[in-house]
Structures are given as C-alpha cells and as structure tokens.
C-alpha cells in the first residue's frame, strides 16, 4: 500500500511499441507500490500500441499529430500530471518489483532531491551488441555511477526510467529538444538550478537494447551527438559544480582520446611495430573485468558476463566511431545533428 506517500504518475512515451508495451504497463501496475496513474502517450503509432496499452490498464493519450521525439511526447503529457511525483519509463522496459517503491523512497528522503534514477541492465542478451551493452552497463552502473552517487552527482538520471518531483519538472516546463539527449540536458539543468539527483542501486530497469549493428549505430549516433550538444550548452554552467564538471570533462576527454586511439593510433602502431600493438585494444580488459564480474556475480551471472566481455571490446569500437564522427561533425564542420531517430 502507498499509505501517506506522495502520489505518482507514470508517463510512458510510445511509438510503435506493440511488441513490448503490454509487458511494460503490466510491469508498472504489478509493482509493490504501483503509480496512481499510468499514462501512455501514443505518439502516432500505427501498430496498435495504444490499444494494447489501454487493454493492459493504462490511460492512453494520443496527440492529434506526432510530437516527433521522446522529449516531445513526455512534455505533452506533463500538463496532465496532478501528482507530486512523476516518473518516466521507456515503452520497451520492465522494472524489478520494488523499483518504483525504492525510487519513491529516495525522492522522499530530501526535499532538494529533484530526481532519482535506477540501475539499468539489458533485458535480452543474445546478440553481440546486446552482450556488449550488458558489460558496458554492468561497468557503468556497478562502478562509475556508484562513485558518482557517493560524491552526490550521478551524471545522468537515465531517460529509460527516472522519477522526478513534479514541481521541478513544471518549473522547467518538461523535456527540452535543444539536444538529442533530453535526459542529460534535464539532469544538468536540475543540477544548475540547485537540485540533487539520486542513484538507487536496488531499483532495476531492464530495457530492450539494440540487437543489430544498424540499430545500435542509430542509438549511438544520437547519444554521441546528444552528449556533445549538452557539453556545449552547459559548459559554462557546470563549471561551478566541481564534481560534475570533473565527471563531464574526464568523460569528454576520454571519449575523444580513446576514439582517436582506437581508430587511428593503434592501427598506425600496428603498421609500424607489427601485431604487438594490437594489445592496445585489450590492455585495459582486466581493469574493466573486475567491476563487471563483481556486479555480475551479485546477479549470479558471473559466467555469462565473463563470456560477454569480448562483445564489449567490439561494441567499444562502434562507440569510438560514432563519438569521433559526432565530434568532427559538431566541432569541426559545425553541423548540428538534430534528427531524432528511434533506435530503442
């Protein structure tokens, strides 16, 4: 039972999510403390997503024309939210049974907490891309994000599942489309306005991740451009937040240098010094493996994670390609990429 806890509205933006929307809505409604209202924004789907969502128990809102982006769909629903707390959830994600309760508790602990986010792990891990993402998430959420939480500055309140105090959302008006990473933009804006963000390890969100190179590429293109666009928008504003500016800067630096290294320096060294230089692609694997295998063993997935490590090395090259390309396009060509393409 919710008891005296603040009431909560769940917004689920959806565009052609017939394959997953039922699971998502049912996952929300079967929570130990379900939201009081579940709104699915059927953003112009042509596959019956709205009907399936309604059958599963959600209120379905359909704009008269498509909003064109996840940020647009979520912002469309925000004016209809009347509860003190609002959560957003991707239409291809399911939650652990107590995820909503855990985020709601975290948000209640401190009135300055503007948002809370969860641990994320891919639901399916069959293809090389899903396995690579699985390792990437175990590393990021099992190590980096936990340190960010210890220091009070989780880098992003993830768009796939986050909970907000509605007053903060209405203060800023919703989700911006000035960058392609609306969750990052909102998080950094909330920090600049004096809010705090919490990362709750025990709450788990399991989205469907891209399972092909093309889909993964579409998503990485959006993420890479979104990251760079956010650095440009907030570069001056985050300077007065020491931990946040450090996290952003080392990520940006590492993203740039690592991409150059993987795609140009190592191949050049191979040409000059022979195959020995290929060790550069795997030299940091032990350092990656320690937190990944630790996080996996807590989930009783040690062997699965161990055999997924090579997939991570492959995914990293794709990450590097899209990051380098985004940096070149945005900084050198000064060409802003702002086409929102769905890539899960």
């Amino acid at each position, binding site marked *: 039972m919710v008891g005296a806890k603040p009431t909560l509205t769940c917004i689920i933006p959806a565009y052609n999510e017939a394959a997953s929307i039922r699971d998502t809505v049912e996952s929300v409604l079967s929570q130990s403390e379900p939201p009081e209202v579940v709104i699915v924004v059927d953003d112009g789907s042509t596959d019956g997503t709205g009907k399936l969502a309604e059958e599963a128990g959600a209120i379905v809102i359909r704009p008269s024309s498509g909003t064109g982006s996840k940020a647009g769909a979520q912002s469309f629903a925000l004016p209809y939210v009347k509860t003190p707390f609002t959560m957003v959830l991707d239409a291809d994600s399911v939650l652990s049974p107590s995820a909503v309760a855990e985020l709601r508790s975290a948000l209640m602990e401190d009135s300055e907490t503007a948002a809370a986010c969860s641990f994320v792990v891919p639901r399916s891990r069959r293809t090389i891309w899903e396995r690579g993402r699985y390792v*990437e998430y175990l590393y990021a959420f099992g190590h980096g994000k936990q340190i960010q939480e210890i220091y009070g500055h989780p880098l992003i309140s993830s768009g796939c599942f986050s909970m907000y105090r509605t007053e903060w959302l209405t203060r800023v008006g919703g989700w911006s489309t000035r960058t392609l990473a609306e969750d990052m933009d909102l998080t950094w804006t909330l920090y600049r306005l004096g809010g705090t963000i919490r990362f709750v390890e025990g709450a788990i969100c399991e989205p469907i991740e891209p399972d092909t190179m093309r889909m993964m590429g579409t998503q990485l293109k959006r993420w890479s451009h979104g990251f760079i666009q956010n650095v440009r928008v907030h570069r001056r504003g985050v300077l007065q937040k020491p931990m946040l500016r450090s996290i952003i800067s080392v990520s940006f630096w590492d993203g740039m240098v690592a991409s150059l290294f993987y795609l140009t320096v190592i191949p050049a060294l191979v040409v000059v010094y022979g195959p020995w230089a290929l060790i550069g692609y795997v030299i940091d694997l032990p*350092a990656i493996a320690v937190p990944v295998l630790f996080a996996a063993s807590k989930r009783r997935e040690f062997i699965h994670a161990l055999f997924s490590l090579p997939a991570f090395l492959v995914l990293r090259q794709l990450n590097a390609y899209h990051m380098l390309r985004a940096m070149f396009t945005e900084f050198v060509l000064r060409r802003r990429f702002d086409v929102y393409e769905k890539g899960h």
Partner: protein
Amino acid sequence: MGPGVPGMGIASIFYVMAALISPLREVVKSVRGESSAQRWMAVGRQFALAVGIVSSIVLLYLSIDALVSSGLLSPPDVADLPGHYPNWAYAVGILIALLLALALAAWVVKLRTRWGSIGDDAEMIADAYRASIPVHEDLRDHGNGRHRSALPQPVISLSGPGHDPAVINVTTATHHLPMRGRHLLEPIHA
C-alpha cells in the same frame, strides 16, 4: 567510460582515485553526521573494487614482464618511442592537468560573473531551457499546459466493450477506464 562513451584511461583513473579517497571523505561526513551505515557499505565496496582494479593492472604488467623476461614473448624494440615513465604516470599527469585547468576556468568564470560580464542565475537557466521545449499544437493556445485550468481535454483511445475503438473525449473515457487513479486525471477539466 560510460554507456556510449568509449574510454581507456583518464576516466578510469579518475574513478579509481575517487574511490580510493572516498573513505577519507566519508570520515569527514561521519563527523558532521551526514553519513550512514548504508553509505559506508557503498564506499567500502567501491574502495575494494578500486583496489581490485589497481591489483589487476599490476598483475597484468608483472605477467607481461615475466613472459618477456623468460623469452616466451619478444616484443618489438620500442626504445625510440617517447617517454621514460610508465604509461599510467602520463595518464595521471594528464588527469591532474585537466582538473587544474577546469578549476582555473571555473575561477575565471566566477570572477567574470562577479564583475557582471556574464550571468547564470536560476531564472535565466530555466528560461533558456523552457524556450527549447516543444509546444504541441494541441496545447499551443493554453500556455503549453502551464495554465492548467484551461487545458484542452486529451484525446484518449478506448477499445473496451461497447466502445468504438476510435478516439473519444477524456471526459467520457475516464468513466470507463479501469485505472484506480483516474480521478487524479479528471479535475484538470475546469
């Protein structure tokens, strides 16, 4: 390294260093009464992981060194490569230089803000953000939903028994919706 952002050094070293000094920070927080057993557990876990990461790297280098010394591996002559220090020393040096440069930039911006040449107050931040939020045509005449009393009724699909699957008005729809929280949606129609 985060999801979608490749990495191979600086960020990892940053997080390892942050984890290694976090117990000291937590001691200070404990003295101030801002810590908890739960926080100490998280700090302890990340500290142990950081030690594990450093150990794994040391072990890797020792293994490679042993293999080369025993003659099982024969790497190319890289004596002409620049540098007399181990790779990690360069990475730590770059990290420290980067963090110092950031601190300097922050100081300069703070001074300029104090002198009034630039500004970054809360209202400006919120206004700039708000200006980039899309206003859907359904909400355009209603202040993008900020004036709740004047909100348009959302179009809702309802496909239950006895209803046309075509879209219908929310005022009607909410009477039939199975959601126990539908009353929270109704009062918006003023």
